[in-house]
């Protein structure tokens, strides 16, 4: 087993081969499932802790503060301390709540984010699921997450929760359209919905550069619409603290609250990772057509660093939004989607089809 940081396919292939040599085929497949599941679980936990820390630090920088700085150097263990506090907290049972649905809701939210994450290409040869309809799969599965939020709001038997869930439902269902249409833009450019093929198609330049104006419009629409879809500020009406206490998760405590909290941050990562994969080439290094020497220098940086670099750049953008813009009202939010973003993205699709037909892209 040789660990090659430039391509993980040799590593995964050799693990697969050794497992199949050691045990029966069905047992080998099952072992692989468990291994990949554990790997994602570990990644999920670490990522969640890191993103919460990052958010607090970025927020502090925006507001001229220092942020967490007591637990460990630069406060890096602050979120671990918070996590320990959260898991040892009491789970408060709610009187007159629908217990079954109340306990189910956090799992629906977290499972859908897991399912989406499985389809992301993290590096060359490091992708758990590579469907030929990759993007469609991501859109399909991520539309299930809102069910968890709606159930959480209703089953809590609280007015704050119910209003939060309603707002969230209206918001997610409407912004899903713009997200889908802006992703469709890149599908039209690359002629494929398979994520690995889309990444490969950017070997001579990322789509945001190759697709020039229409790709840029699609990227801006995606950034706005997906920020709304993950219920983050300035679109965080579903949990507007000043109006609704905490929105749909007002009644949750302890680890169940942590599940919602974690899923929210992981969804931010997923949204950023999809943007990085479709518009900024995913794990593909920065290549410029015919600049052979430059391309080779760029290839020296491992693909996993490219992927996470781009993703965290977009995460930073999303965090920047949250700490810059004030929260929208619900009517402004729906106006923005139905009167501006949706017609714009429909026109953009027409524009892109025209550009692709005429071959006016690189």
């Amino acid at each position, binding site marked *: 087993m040789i660990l090659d940081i430039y391509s993980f396919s040799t590593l995964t292939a050799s693990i697969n081969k050794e497992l199949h040599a050691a045990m029966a085929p069905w047992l080998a497949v099952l072992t692989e499932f468990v291994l990949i599941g554990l790997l994602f679980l570990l990644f999920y936990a670490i990522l969640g802790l890191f993103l919460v820390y990052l958010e607090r630090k970025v927020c502090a920088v925006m507001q001229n503060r220092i942020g967490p700085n007591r637990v460990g150097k630069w406060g890096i263990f602050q979120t671990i301390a918070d996590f320990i506090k959260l898991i040892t907290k009491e789970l408060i049972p709610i009187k007159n709540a*629908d217990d079954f649905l109340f306990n189910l809701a956090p799992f629906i939210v977290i499972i859908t984010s897991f399912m989406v994450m499985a389809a992301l290409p993290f590096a060359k040869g490091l992708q758990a699921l590579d469907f*030929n309809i990759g993007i469609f799969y991501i859109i399909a599965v991520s539309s299930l997450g*809102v069910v968890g939020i709606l*159930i959480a*709001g209703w089953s809590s038997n609280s007015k704050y929760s119910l209003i939060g869930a*309603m707002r969230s439902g209206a918001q997610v269902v409407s912004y899903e359209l713009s997200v889908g249409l802006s992703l469709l833009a890149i599908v039209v450019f690359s002629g494929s919905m398979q994520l690995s093929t889309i990444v490969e198609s950017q070997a001579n330049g990322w789509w945001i550069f190759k697709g020039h104006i229409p790709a840029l419009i699609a990227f801006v629409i995606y950034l706005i619409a997906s920020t709304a879809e993950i219920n983050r500020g300035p679109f965080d009406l579903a949990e507007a603290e000043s109006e609704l206490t905490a929105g749909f998760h007002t009644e949750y405590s302890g680890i169940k609250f942590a599940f919602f909290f974690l899923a929210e941050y992981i969804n931010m990562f997923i949204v950023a990772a999809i943007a990085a994969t479709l518009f900024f080439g995913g794990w593909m290094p920065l290549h410029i057509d015919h600049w052979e020497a430059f391309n080779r220098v760029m290839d020296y940086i491992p693909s996993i660093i490219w992927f996470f670099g781009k993703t965290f750049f977009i995460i930073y953008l999303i965090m920047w939004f949250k700490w810059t813009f004030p929260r929208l009202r619900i009517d402004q939010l729906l106006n923005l989607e139905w009167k501006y973003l949706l017609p714009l993205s429909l026109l953009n699709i027409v524009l892109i089809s025209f550009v692709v037909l005429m071959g006016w892209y690189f």
Partner: protein
Amino acid sequence: MTLNVLMFYLLSGIILTFSVLTITSRRMLRAAVYLLFVLVATAGFYFLLNYQFLAAVQLTLYAGGIVVLIIFSILLTSHISHKFAKPAPWKLWMGVSVLAVGGALTLWTLLSHDFVKSAGVKTVPVDMHLIGNQLLGMGKNGYVLSFEIISILLLAAMIAAIVSVKKEKNKKSETL
């Protein structure tokens, strides 16, 4: 027993259990959530058959679209303390007898049909371009006519929905 067969039985078990729970549950939102499980498990079948396109369609349309709409309308109309009343005995017996007849008919058809095991069939991922071309194709097996008719129907339905909820202009407010 291979993993495929195991998954088949697992998914079938989920579908059967939650289908029964959907119609027997006396709480409305629980019934909707059980229905969601049934639909997601059906998508699992398509994944098992390597037909990912249909699986994704199933997830977006039924699980992500219709069930979300159902849940949303329940949220708007019903309170958590609402429970369905128990059905009248004669209705229950009617339902059970229809179930028995329908089940017997299905079983009889299934068991009397002579299934032929096709040899050497490999699972091939369905090409997206093929689906797209077929959907808008005007030649043999093309669906362009039905596609267009359905889009006109949907447009008409949307306009009808807008017209039916649109309020008449208030004459008083115009004079003010």
